[in-house]
């Protein structure tokens, strides 16, 4: 079957997106009075300091458990906790601090952003710019550098993502490549030239720390240093994938309304702590200035204009599975979610390139 979509950031889909005005387009926003939005956007250090203290104490506590019980089966529960904190919750900290919304104080955002980027094996410079592009051109093929599941979907790849193997295989070589001064054409397409030297510097720091960890492991003749630094990206990223895949999977691409290409899912409080409320993902994409701790309030304010949230992750995956199966044969197929009667309708004029086959 011929593939219609070119996910390269410098290919045919890129050219079409730019020519048709899909790139850097005007997006739909629910009307929110300025006064209410100003209040929602207000920054505060309190919630993020509280959550970060809990986060660090939990990371250090579970790491201490791993060291203490290393060599016994008692180490397993500590590995489970440490792995998720290191390999999954770091993603939401990276994300919120990258937006600069978690803390009011800038250096606190920057410090947690750098630490979380390291934990995720993400170049902090590259990923800051790729995420800016993701917000400009959300799920616009040929423009968005962060499309997790491309069409037609590679289900094996999606399943393997839960193990972290594919991301690990991509992230580590990218860091090494950047450390040697090589920037790919895709990376150059969204990183300004004046920032490219920072990509190399950041990669060299990351690689140096990983090299030191390997040297320590060899010196101690133990896997323990690697289990604590680096490998959690493999055994602990499953929760990040579990929650993150639901953000856009199975929904429309090449549209300019986040209600069509982004999903809000109600989640349990533990997942919401790990994910820092990014389950309110339509709300986040519409108004990225709103801090994670204000997203539940934003949701209450605008939910009349959004599709009904999925009541659980299980519900969302059950909804999306048949869509993925159908996309294997018809890659244009997608899930078009119903709007409530109180919502403004999807605007056809914004979606000239909306693919034709939708499950309604």
């Amino acid at each position, binding site marked *: 079957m011929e593939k219609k979509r070119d996910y390269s950031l410098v290919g045919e889909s890129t050219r079409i997106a730019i020519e048709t005005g899909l790139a850097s387009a005007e997006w739909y926003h629910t009307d929110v009075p300025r006064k209410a*939005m100003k209040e929602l956007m207000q920054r505060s250090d309190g919630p993020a300091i509280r959550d970060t203290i809990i986060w660090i104490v939990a990371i250090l506590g579970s790491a201490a458990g791993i060291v203490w019980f290393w060599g016994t089966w008692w180490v397993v529960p500590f590995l489970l906790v440490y792995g998720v904190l290191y390999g999954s919750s770091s993603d939401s900290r990276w994300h919120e601090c990258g937006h*600069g919304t978690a803390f009011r104080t800038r250096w606190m955002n920057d410090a947690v952003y750098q630490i979380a980027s390291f934990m995720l094996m993400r170049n902090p*410079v590259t990923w800051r710019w790729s995420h*800016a592009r993701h*917000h*400009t051109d959300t799920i616009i093929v040929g423009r968005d550098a962060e499309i997790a599941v491309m069409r037609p979907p590679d289900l094996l790849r999606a399943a393997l993502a839960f193990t972290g193997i594919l991301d690990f295989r991509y992230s580590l070589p990218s860091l090494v490549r950047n450390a040697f001064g090589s920037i790919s054409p895709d990376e150059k397409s969204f990183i*300004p030239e004046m920032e490219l030297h920072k990509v190399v510097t950041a990669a060299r720091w990351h690689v140096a720390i990983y090299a030191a960890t390997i040297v320590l492991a060899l010196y101690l003749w133990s896997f323990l240093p690697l289990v604590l630094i680096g490998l959690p990206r493999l055994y602990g990223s499953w929760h990040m994938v579990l929650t993150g895949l639901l953000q856009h999977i199975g929904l429309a691409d090449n549209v300019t309304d986040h209600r069509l290409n982004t999903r809000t899912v109600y989640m349990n409080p533990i997942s919401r702590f790990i994910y820092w409320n990014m389950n309110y993902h339509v709300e986040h994409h519409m108004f*990225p*200035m709103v801090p994670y701790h204000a997203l539940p309030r934003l949701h209450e304010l605008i939910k009349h204009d959004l599709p009904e949230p999925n009541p659980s992750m299980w519900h969302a995956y059950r909804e999306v599975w048949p869509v993925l199966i159908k996309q294997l044969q018809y890659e244009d197929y997608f899930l078009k979610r119903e709007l409530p009667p109180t919502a403004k309708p999807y605007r056809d004029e914004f979606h000239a390139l909306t693919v034709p086959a939708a499950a309604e």
Partner: protein
Amino acid sequence: MADWVEACGVDDVEEEDVIRFDHGGRTFAIYRSPDDEYFATDGYCTHEKAHLADGLVMDDIIECPKHNGRFNYKTGVARGAPVCVNLATYPVKVEAGKVMIQIG
């Protein structure tokens, strides 16, 4: 010679806030600082076309609503990624309860 143009009334902008002002096919942002001074810059972010008037004013910083790029709205200086290019600023004066900006 640059003209002074009436942008808004002094009470049209709340303290530590910003409003949009369109004139002559151009868009500007008018700021009122926490210490009750007025400032004016170009209305669009230099990173991508987003109205800064939809953003957040914190002390002397305006944060773009689209990608959280930050500028010092008093000087126009870009304060880090994803904004790299400074913002144009315009002289402002207050006369008879009106905020006037000088547009070149």
